[in-house]
């Protein structure tokens, strides 16, 4: 081969000439001073530790945006406030929602990016010389983030792969299997942490300040058990969460709150008046927590919108991974489903009558106790309404509407979900032959 000939014969005199004429630039193997390569990250303890930090940052600043706002548009928690076609189409929803929609691609891709980072940590950690507590912590953190990412996929799509695959060939499983895998990951992590508690160094330097690993694992387990219909286990898991604990994603200038970013910095979205629900009680103190300012019209469809506050009012506002009140609402719903309406009502009232000052995150409805009929349907409707406010922009409203709301979506009703599930992004379909057919709506 001529190039090989050139390489061997010409290289020496050229290098010599290079040294004669010029000090810099003589080496063709230039080291990248900007960032490490994959090999440098995955084969060193400091690389894996940095990746574990980066994974949390990525989830908090990148993945959360579509998880909260894309599904939040379909569930009508936010209105689109910008004229970009992808946003306008997303809000329109319906059967014609384009499969190349950028926001849906983000929801899909940013969760699988997290899955991939978690898998890298899971694969690399056991072979590296970590102490036992740090190894346990890293593996459990990876399990949590993989579980959250798979859970997000299962709430937006009918099917999804359980693992990533660089050969573009991973197979799809039904969403129930995704919830099951998420629950398994969470239970593995809890068992591992019980066997080997995380090291202090891990808690101090790797887990982001504000994240309570053990309670978050238990809370997400409760959430997904409810979604999976395993009501007894869901109640037990919800009760295992410390009601006084909080777990929040911290933000700062370098890692700004993604909802703030998309609402204030770039006005893509605005929060709907009354959380996008016609049934919201005007005395609900949570309105004042999450919403401020005057009611205006959104840019595209002139929907009534307010100014966003609460966990999203500034670049550095923390976003909870779960709301303490969600555990009561999980218990309430699971109790209804298992026929215990009295305890269910009590759990519901625990949220309804919560004073903001008594809540660890300052979120309280301050409403009167439930006084509606003590029937399963009425209670479920009340629980749905309560979840709408208590879990505003927590990324679960679309799942809640499917589970507790009307049977079918209605894109023409600005209070009804505009889709059931999203179509699979074109980029997946064009590259992965296993991509299933899209849901009709």
């Amino acid at each position, binding site marked *: 081969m001529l190039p090989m000939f050139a390489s061997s014969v010409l290289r020496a*005199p050229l290098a010599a000439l290079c040294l004669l*004429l010029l000090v810099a630039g003589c080496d063709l193997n*230039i080291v990248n001073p900007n960032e490490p390569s994959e090999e440098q990250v995955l084969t060193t303890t400091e690389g894996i530790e940095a990746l574990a930090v980066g994974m949390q940052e990525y989830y908090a600043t990148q993945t959360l945006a579509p998880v909260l706002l894309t599904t939040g548009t379909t569930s009508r928690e936010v209105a689109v406030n910008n004229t970009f076609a992808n946003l306008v189409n997303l809000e329109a929803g319906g059967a014609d929602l384009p499969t190349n929609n950028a926001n849906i691609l983000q929801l899909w891709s940013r969760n699988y990016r997290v899955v991939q980072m978690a898998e890298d940590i899971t694969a690399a950690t056991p072979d590296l010389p970590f102490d036992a507590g740090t190894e346990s912590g890293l593996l459990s953190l990876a399990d949590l983030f993989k579980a959250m990412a798979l859970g997000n996929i299962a709430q937006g799509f009918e099917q999804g792969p359980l693992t990533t695959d660089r050969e573009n060939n991973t197979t799809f499983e039904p969403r129930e299997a995704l919830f099951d895998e998420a629950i398994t990951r969470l239970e593995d992590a809890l068992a591992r942490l019980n066997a080997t508690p995380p090291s202090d160094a891990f808690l101090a330097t790797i887990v982001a300040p504000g994240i309570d690993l053990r309670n978050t694992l238990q809370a997400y387990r409760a959430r997904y058990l409810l979604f999976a219909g395993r009501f007894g286990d869901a109640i037990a898991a919800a009760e295992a969460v410390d009601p006084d604990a909080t777990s929040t994603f911290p933000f700062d200038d370098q890692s700004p709150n993604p909802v703030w970013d998309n609402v204030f910095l770039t006005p893509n979205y605005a929060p709907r008046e009354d959380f996008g629900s016609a049934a919201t009680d005007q005395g609900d103190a949570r309105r004042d927590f999450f919403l401020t300012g005057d009611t205006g019209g959104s840019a595209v469809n002139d929907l009534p919108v307010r100014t966003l506050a609460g966990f999203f009012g500034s670049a550095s506002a923390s976003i909870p991974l779960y709301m303490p009140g969600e555990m009561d609402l999980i218990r309430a719903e699971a109790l209804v489903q298992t026929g215990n309406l009295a305890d269910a009502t009590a759990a519901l009232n625990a949220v309804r009558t919560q004073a903001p000052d008594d809540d660890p995150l300052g979120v309280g409805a301050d409403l009167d106790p439930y006084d509606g009929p003590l029937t399963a349907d009425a209670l479920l409707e009340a629980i749905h309404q309560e979840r709408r406010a208590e879990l505003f922009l927590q990324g679960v409203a679309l799942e809640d509407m499917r589970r507790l709301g009307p049977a079918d979506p209605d894109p023409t009703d600005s209070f009804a979900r505009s889709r059931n599930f999203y179509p699979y992004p074109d980029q997946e379909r064009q590259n992965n032959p296993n991509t299933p057919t899209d849901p009709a709506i």
Partner: protein
Amino acid sequence: MPFRYLPFYVALSVIIMVVGALPVAAQEAPYTITGTVIDDALGGPLPGASVQVVGTSLGAATDADGVYRISGRLEPGTYTLRYTFVGYRAAEREVTLSDVETVSVDPVRLQTDLIRGEEIVVTGTGVPTERRQLGNAISTVDAGELEESGASSIDRALQGKVAGAQIQQNSGNPAGGISVRLRGTSTVLGSADPLYIVDGVIISNDAPELIDLGGGAQNRLVDINPNDIERIEIVKGAAAAALYGSRANSGVVQIFTKRGQEGAPRVSFTTRVQTEAVRNTLNVNTAQNEQGQFLDNSGNPLPDGEQRWDWQDFIFDRAYGTEQSLSISGGAADTRYSVSGSHFANQGIVEGNSFRRLNARLRIDQTLTPWASISGSANYTRSTTQDVPNGGLNANYGALTGFIFGPNTFDPRPNELGQYPNEGILANPVEVAERFDFEQATDRFIGSATLNLTPTDNLSIDYVLGIDTHDQRATAFIPRGTSAPGFAGGFARRSTRNQLQVNNDLNVRYTAALTPTLESTTLIGGTLQYEEATTFSAQSQDLSPVSEVVQSGTASREIGEIRSERAIYGVFAQETLGWNDRLFVTGAGRFDASSSFGEGERWQFYPKASLSYILSEHTFWTDAGLAEAIPSFKLRGSIGFSGGLTSIGAFDRFTNFPPQAYIGQPGVQPSSQLGALGVRPERQREIEIGADFSLLQDRIAVEATYYTQRTEDLLLNRSLAPTSGFLSRLQNVGTLTNQGIELLIRGLPISQENLQWTTTLTFSRNRNEVNGLEEDVLIFPESFGLVGAINGEPLGIYYGSAFARDAAGNVLDQNGNILEEDGNGRWRMRDGAPAETGDGVPARADESQIIGDPNPDFVASWTNEVRFRNLDLRMQWDAVVGQDVFNFTRRLAALSAFGTLDDYQRELEGDLPAGYTGSAFGIFEHWVEDGSFLKLREVSAAYTLRLASAPVERVRISLTGRNLLSIDGYSGYDPEINVAGQRTNVRNFDFVEVPIPRTFSLGVTATF
């Protein structure tokens, strides 16, 4: 054998040591040779012609009276004087030097040479070569053509002057960017602009967007002062440019600056004033009801006393500019020099926008011995701009951006308290222009040192060291409390880019007459190139009062630093055989290595072969009587290979994990681009064939070329399934082909004493096609998802929602009625008038489709130059035909939420059915327009005064108009526009970028 000097470094070090110690040869005596050169057609003196003593480094240029004077030390004997001037046929005279010190030579008359066969060029050959010997087309532009263009940068001045080039000004800002495409686009990821070389220095033409001005950016060619240019040579593809190896895929533009000539100092001073204004404005919404009340965007009357405004009145303003430049050149004995300095300052037509450039330049040529000379050049530039953001590709706080989002139902000017109304959707344009402070400044040094050795008549050795380094700094400041959404607390950003490029080139040339009819020229050479760039930026929001600096901001603080480094090795050899001065065959090859690619794919081989055959030199040509009709006829053909270096960044082949801290803890995150260690450089193969011939006693010269380029291993960011954990991977997939013809016809309709008329027509047609993509549609970033590539289609087609059409292709409304376009870009019912809801409202097709193509069918220019006594008149028309332009500006303004242009006015007033603009907004095809234009690019008149009595030798007064007139059917400002700046693939995107103004300038040049 001269080759024993190899390897190069031995040769070079020996030479460097020897040169300093060489004594001057003993028998030399001082001589002065003088004479005059006359323009054969006009009969007058020919200033600026070059006279060279062949075989020596002695030479001079003629002064304003056509007089030359060569002084130097020579051995007695017989020498040949060679007289050359661009556009004229060379002449030679013999002169014998004996014991008379001063020798006068009879006047020499130079004849116009339309075909320019004897012009000496070097680009693509590495060896000074007569154009007639070349197997490829080459375009040359000389100073005279640039001087009267009224353009402030080289690339603007080149518009319309090069066959095979499409040169587009992307913005009408005074330092607005330019894109140059030579024979189409041959890369997707990289820059498709050519490689620029100035006096042997590879220079940067980067266009970094250090601050967000809405999409556009200045390209760094703006730092070069067009007044310093002597000549430009342009080769357009691999067939001619293979010697430039991995940097040649987009062609090469080589610029030669003015150098001193021996003789008395020549001083030239130019002063120029210019004025610019917007050529036309958009029709804004002035909707009124029948009572004469202005309507808001909901159709309700505005309160009494309020009205709709044309905000363009407050944004655009007449701009003024000025230029002064001084140059001194001359030389004595063995030293020649050229020194120049200039100051150029120009306002933009958008209030608050301006550009200033200071240049200082020195060039020295020193003859060391009869066989050794060195030359050095140093050029310093400071370019500064006061920028006003516009456009809407990224940031949405621009001046025209605020105008188009409107609504124009209030007066945007400040009230008596100095407060700017904040009732618009985006930032108040008047406030943007007056209170935002966006600036850029560049300090740049370009220097070169050249050593030229001719140890024997047959052997020459050249070494060039070139350095281009610049610091570009940009600051952006939005004060507290402006109307810019999201920036109420103010915004500060500073970004700097430091770049260094170094090239070392060593060429060894050996010529030999193998037989009396066969001549050989051998060239071997090597090049080492190194470049590094660092970008550093910091920004913040929520500033302290008054403070404009980044550290005063308390929120959204961001810092970033990116470093890049690249090294390139290249060696090449070339052999040219010339038979009987009529058949020339050249073969060459270059080995190239770039640090951007992995070891396995690093070394590449780029061969080339070419042939030139001058049939008219044969006796049969004359015998057959062909010489009468076609005095000169040359056939040429060339094939070459080259590479595309710019399409991959220095470290793009790795899977990188960029740092990302989280609340004080160091972290990394994988890039969304999966690494690909085995990627190869893109590789272009180009074949061109052509003919150069003259007709009608050399009154008409024709250069015709057909070329076909094929870029293989096209580097693309192949998309990956997101379930891979990544989004893309670099991959050598796909091909890109460019095929086309170039035609240059130069005619001399009138050539007589005191009157000469030259007319030049260039025509270029290129067909571009992408193939081998694995996806159905590859959508390019920063195009709002509307620009992409599809197999079998040209690069950069517009792809998006289209009109619903019936089987016959008629556009349909929402009720199935047929619509027709009314000549103003609006669609009307063909039969009847709207009666029901949805009548006359265009409907959207279900599927996205190709809805436009920004690539023109052809570009052409027609230039006429008339010289009558001392008056020079010049007129240039440029045409671009068959390109589409995406009028995003008009689309946006049509939507009821903004409603700033007359489309929405028509809906409000009932001329268009209700719902028309809302539906049309969602049909992107509605907003793609034919952007063909015929533009009066340049008109100039220059008068030269020769005042025999005054100390001034010559005064030249010129009046120039630029971009005076555009004949087009485009509804926006100007179809020559691109908000995406110099981006390779997103072209002809009109989104409130500043339009190209109409310019008049008046200049006076005095030569002493």
